[in-house]
């Protein structure tokens, strides 16, 4: 009798412990996740898209330039300190550093160091590297690798790549290899910039067909998009030089790039693109998605190729 009683008592204690342990953990986990959800703003995994051209380029006038700052719109660190506080002061330092980055990168980095928010300080450093790249790329080459944040280290190389695209395309594309999560974005944009001034070089680079499918096809997309911003017919001629497998992607870029200027004209132009008409329309549809989702759906509906149409509708309706 003694042995079964002891065994049952043992089971009782074990069950109590397990019940208490799992129950408490479940309760704490549920409460904890609710608290975390309430406190934390939703943060996309991809929090930082590549910085589009022209974005976040706060002009000195917007920050209140005046005669006391030199009368020419130039900002100085002392003016920032005097006139602004908190985030505005940080932004002022960033702008001041950007203004002087090309002619005095060392001094500009010192200004960046005054920024209290770490993220903004890294961005400031990346800006200075980009600004100074055309004048002296060795400065940025030394600076970018020292930025501790993977994201901003990548952005720093991306910015330098873009700045050097028209100066030395091979160096610019080399920068893209260090652009971390922005690598394929960088290749796309640098190749696009190169295509505007030296199409043969851009085509030669994409024709090397480096990397996986995504890397290879986006290379051609860049050529189509950048040239189409200037002229859709010219972009079509360039896309016809693309590797046959990725020609459709180039025409998608063509549709997107021309839609940035004029979506109606872009759509009309797609009618001249023969078998790539649908890729072109798909590009226009995707570009319009941010501004006019209903129009994107309508454009996808006009696509004749069933595969492209399904993909198009799936994307714009997601």
């Amino acid at each position, binding site marked *: 009798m003694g042995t079964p009683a002891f065994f049952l008592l043992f089971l009782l204690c074990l069950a109590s412990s397990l019940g208490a342990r799992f*129950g408490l953990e479940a309760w704490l986990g549920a409460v*904890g996740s609710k608290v975390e959800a309430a406190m934390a703003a939703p943060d996309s995994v991809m929090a930082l898209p590549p910085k589009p051209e022209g974005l976040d380029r706060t002009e000195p006038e917007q920050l209140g330039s005046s005669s006391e700052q030199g009368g020419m719109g130039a900002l100085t660190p002392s003016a920032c300190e005097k006139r602004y506080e908190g985030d505005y002061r940080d932004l002022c330092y960033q702008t001041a550093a950007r203004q002087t980055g090309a002619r005095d990168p060392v001094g500009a980095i010192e200004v960046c160091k005054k920024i209290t928010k770490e993220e903004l300080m890294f961005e400031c450093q990346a800006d200075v590297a980009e600004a100074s790249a055309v004048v002296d790329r060795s400065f940025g080459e030394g600076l970018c690798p020292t930025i501790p944040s993977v994201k901003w280290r990548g952005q720093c190389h991306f910015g330098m790549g873009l700045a050097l695209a028209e100066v030395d395309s091979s160096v610019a594309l080399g920068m893209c290899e260090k652009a971390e999560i922005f690598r394929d974005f960088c290749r796309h944009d640098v190749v696009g910039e190169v295509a505007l001034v030296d199409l043969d070089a851009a085509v030669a680079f994409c024709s090397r067909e480096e990397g996986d499918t995504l890397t290879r096809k986006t290379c051609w997309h860049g050529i189509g998009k950048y040239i189409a911003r200037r002229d859709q017919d010219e972009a079509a001629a360039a896309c016809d030089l693309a590797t046959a497998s990725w020609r459709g992607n180039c025409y998608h870029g063509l549709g997107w790039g021309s839609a940035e200027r004029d979506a109606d004209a872009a759509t009309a132009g797609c009618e001249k693109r023969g078998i790539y008409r649908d890729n072109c329309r798909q590009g226009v549809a*995707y570009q319009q998605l941010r501004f006019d989702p209903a129009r994107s759906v309508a454009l996808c509906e006009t696509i004749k190729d069933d595969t492209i149409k399904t993909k198009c509708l799936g994307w714009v309706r997601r």
Partner: protein
Amino acid sequence: MAASRKKKLIIGTVSLLVLAGIGAGAWVYLKPPPPPPDAGPERTYDQIDRKEYEDWMRSLGYTE
């Protein structure tokens, strides 16, 4: 007397086992999912899933 005691012990133990089972079930059901590995923009190029990367590129006009 001994039989009654034994019965009570069995009932108590079974009850607690049921409780433990409920607790374990609740834990499995309510446990928050683990964060994705290396989530966030601090990932390196090689740490990003290519499908996720392609969708990101597509949303920004970098691919079809």
